[in-house]
């Protein structure tokens, strides 16, 4: 029986990015990593393997030639088998087309669980899990923080909700788990083990092997089209100016008490404790942190 893990190679966002037709890095050579959520998903899958007998981990990626890097990482981390669904078209494929291709590969496998990251660092649409689960006809659980085998065929999972809440769910197998990137810290993979992995076999598949053409996964087949890309405009730091609605006498007494420093640059508020507390609350209300 197999546990399938779907991973994606993404650009390392720690490095400055720019738009040059597409998104590029301003580095001598581009730096790619395995999508962090996928990395955690893979770790969780490996943990599952440790607690189940006879399961094998098969890691799959759909990507251009350079995506081999993440499969080497998977092998070094302990994957039994890795599959590279290779085509340049995956460079720009959207969630729908990527999931379509992946499902074709996975359908042929005898799997119990599918792990993937909840969302990817780059596009972050978070839709591949749903598309994949639907096309395979299996239940999906998203935002997975942890899981536990209760008995053969029964798994208990914790979903991450807002503000630290968790929803505990039971889900029958086979199922797809979309793991949240905060579900753990990525387990370190040593350079020596990566070197050893460089010698191992990767099963390579082309679109033709799964009965698809470039048109099926190309931009024309996507459901969404990106019209333009741009770096974000620098967010002007909103410096808070004290309440213009204070009465004149209040403002006078404030200034006389040594209050606001002069000059536009400085916006350091000073004053009585009550005044300052009031200003803080007004700020919080204005910013929508406190209800009106």
């Amino acid at each position, binding site marked *: 029986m197999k546990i399938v893990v779907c991973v994606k190679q993404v650009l390392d966002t720690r490095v400055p990015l720019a738009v040059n037709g597409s998104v590029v*890095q301003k*580095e001598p050579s581009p*730096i790619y990593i395995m999508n962090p959520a996928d990395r955690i998903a893979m770790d969780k899958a490996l943990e599952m393997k440790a607690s189940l007998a006879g399961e094998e981990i098969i890691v799959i990626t759909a990507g251009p030639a350079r995506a081999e890097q993440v499969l080497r990482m998977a092998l070094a981390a302990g994957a039994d088998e890795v599959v590279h669904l290779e085509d340049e078209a995956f460079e720009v494929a959207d969630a729908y087309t990527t999931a379509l291709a992946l499902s074709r590969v996975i359908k042929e496998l005898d799997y119990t669980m599918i792990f993937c990251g909840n969302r990817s660092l780059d596009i972050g649409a978070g839709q591949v899990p749903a598309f994949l689960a639907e096309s395979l006809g299996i239940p999906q659980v998203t935002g997975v923080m942890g899981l536990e085998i209760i008995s053969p065929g029964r798994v208990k999972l914790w979903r991450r909700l807002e503000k630290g809440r968790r929803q505990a769910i039971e889900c029958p197998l086979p199922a797809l788990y979309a793991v949240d990137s905060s579900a753990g810290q*990525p*387990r*370190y*993979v*040593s*350079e020596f083990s990566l070197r050893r992995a460089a010698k191992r076999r990767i099963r390579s598949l082309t679109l033709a092997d799964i009965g698809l053409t470039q048109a099926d996964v190309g931009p024309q087949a996507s459901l969404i089209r990106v019209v333009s890309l741009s770096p974000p405009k620098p967010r002007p730091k909103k410096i808070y100016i004290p309440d213009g609605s204070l009465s004149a006498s209040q403002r006078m007494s404030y200034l006389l008490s040594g209050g606001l420093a002069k000059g536009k640059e400085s916006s350091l508020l000073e004053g009585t404790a009550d005044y300052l507390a009031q200003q803080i609350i007004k700020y919080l209300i204005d910013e929508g942190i406190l209800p009106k």
Partner: protein
Amino acid sequence: MTPVSDIYWHISGYAIFWILFAIAFGLFAQRVYFLFRLLRLGRREERSQSLGRRIKTMLVEVFPQWCNLKTVTRQDLAGIGHSLLFWGFGLFLIGYIIFIGLGGGFGLSSVLAGSTFEIVYFSILDIAGLFVSAAIVWAAIRRYIIRPERLEASFEAGIILLLVITLMALHFCIEGFGYAAYHISAPWPPIGAAFANFLISTDVSESTLVAVYKGVWWLHYAIILGFLVYIPRSKHLHILASPFNVLFKPLAPKGALKLIDPEKAETIGAAKIQDFTWKQLLDLYACAVCGRCHTNCPATLSGKPLSPREVILNLKDHLLEVGPQLLSAETPSANPGTAMIEDVITEEVIWDCTTCYACQEVCPVGIEHTVKLIDMRRNLVEHGRVSPSVAKALESVRLLGNPWEQPQSARLDWAEGRKVNLIQDREEVDVLYWVGCAGAYDPRSRDISLAVVSLLERAGVNYALLGTEERCCGDPARRMGEEGLFQMLARSNIDVLKKYRFNRILTHCPHCYNMLKNEYPQLGAQFEVVHHSQFLLELIHSGKIKLQEGQELRLTFHDPCYLGRYNDIYDPPRQVLQAISKATLIEMRLNKTKAMCCGAGGGQIWIQSEKGRRIEDMRFEQVQEVDAQIVATACPYCTIMLDAVAQIKEPTGKIKVMDIAELVVRALAQ
């Protein structure tokens, strides 16, 4: 005549002598052989190169007791005591061989008895005996009454002290009773003769004297044999093991780690005791439990679980415990029941080490503590058993070429707005300035790089930087046990450096210095490397940098571990400081070879042990103790650590932390 030639209950004394000897020697040899077989469980290691040089080192360290005398400080004079013990007991040992062995066992006593040789030798032994007894008494008082931190008031130590002093006492008794019993009177040997005269003056009968003499003689013999049996079964094993340990000391630069060939290595690093090399295991035998490593270790001093002494002793106990089972196991790589990592040495302890080398510097018998800890780290890394902060730093080094999570393309940002020479634009330069990761990315350390560059320009040095082609030298990776990553970085850096033409590499970071100079040759590089303290001194001496008249500054210097202990560079930075300050340099109590680590090395700045005090806090308190205005540093890590503490403990800036380059810039003539 010795009592050996007598007959006892129809049994020849010789028979008794030799049977006892055979038993004792048999037990001794059996134990030594067992210990030797345990060593052979360890991995192979080449330690016989330059045998002539090795033998010379051993002879110098052991016989003149340089190994102990070098550890003597005003606070700890024990090295002198041990030397006296060693020489004194050495003379006794020779005496035993001659007088008991040859004289007694081989019946040559008739030749020796009364001879001038005997008189002279016994006189020497009398003096030696006094010194040894005094040393023993001093040792006992220290160990059991004064109780300094590094000495354990153990049962085993007590037995050994008792045995030795008993042997001294018995020696005097043998002389006294012997001379008295056989009416030998002479002024020499001094104590023996005096004791004999005293006994003669009493009314003790001759037969009693003879009986006591014989009894004492055999007792003395028995205790010597007992000692022989006890030596390999106690910490006195160090007598046998330590000369060999010194013989097999590494000839490589201090602290240099071994290159792993991942193709050939069965296990990466050390997970079980047999994964250590035989030399690493020999270290465990050589330990005399002196405790100096324990009292000099910054981790121990700051209350962390790591104690180098405990590491060595625990490993030794573990080896002795699982040894028999391993010797009889099917394969040498069998797994002993107890897990070395976690049961014997916890992961926490393994990560507490800053690799400051204080333990190895001060160890009289040449034990390599840090190598064992890093070997264990190598195994942990291989299995992904590292903390998130370590993983983050290592991943950053791997992907971005530095541990600070900054992009490689930003490596020259520190020089923004300033014109700097890049080697890519030059044919050939004299000096390649290796900036290092801290110097490029850390906000505080960037000031050091800027200072160095302005000094290079002021002095008209033909220098250039590698710019964005520079990658981490690999020190954090290697010291944290990621050997593969170190090798990858080193090869990459060597390839880049080989493209360019320069005479020397200059660096302000002792870790980079140590790597480039001492460890890169393992991968085929041969660079001449100079630390900025040495280089600045050259510039000052040659007049290329002119300084103002020295100011009255209360300066102290914090010796960086990787400059001081690792590379024995203590004076150049001091001379630089002396050139800029009229006032005498203030020395901290823990300075030079004894300097306390700043707490950042060995990857600790990313490992961040949680227990105990922060090492940098303790070091800064030592700076405050000497009431200095400025603590000068020569390493970016030291600057970062001490400066961070200074911001909190001396926010008004009463004590400043400054790199020597920054101080020289301030002192430049206009």
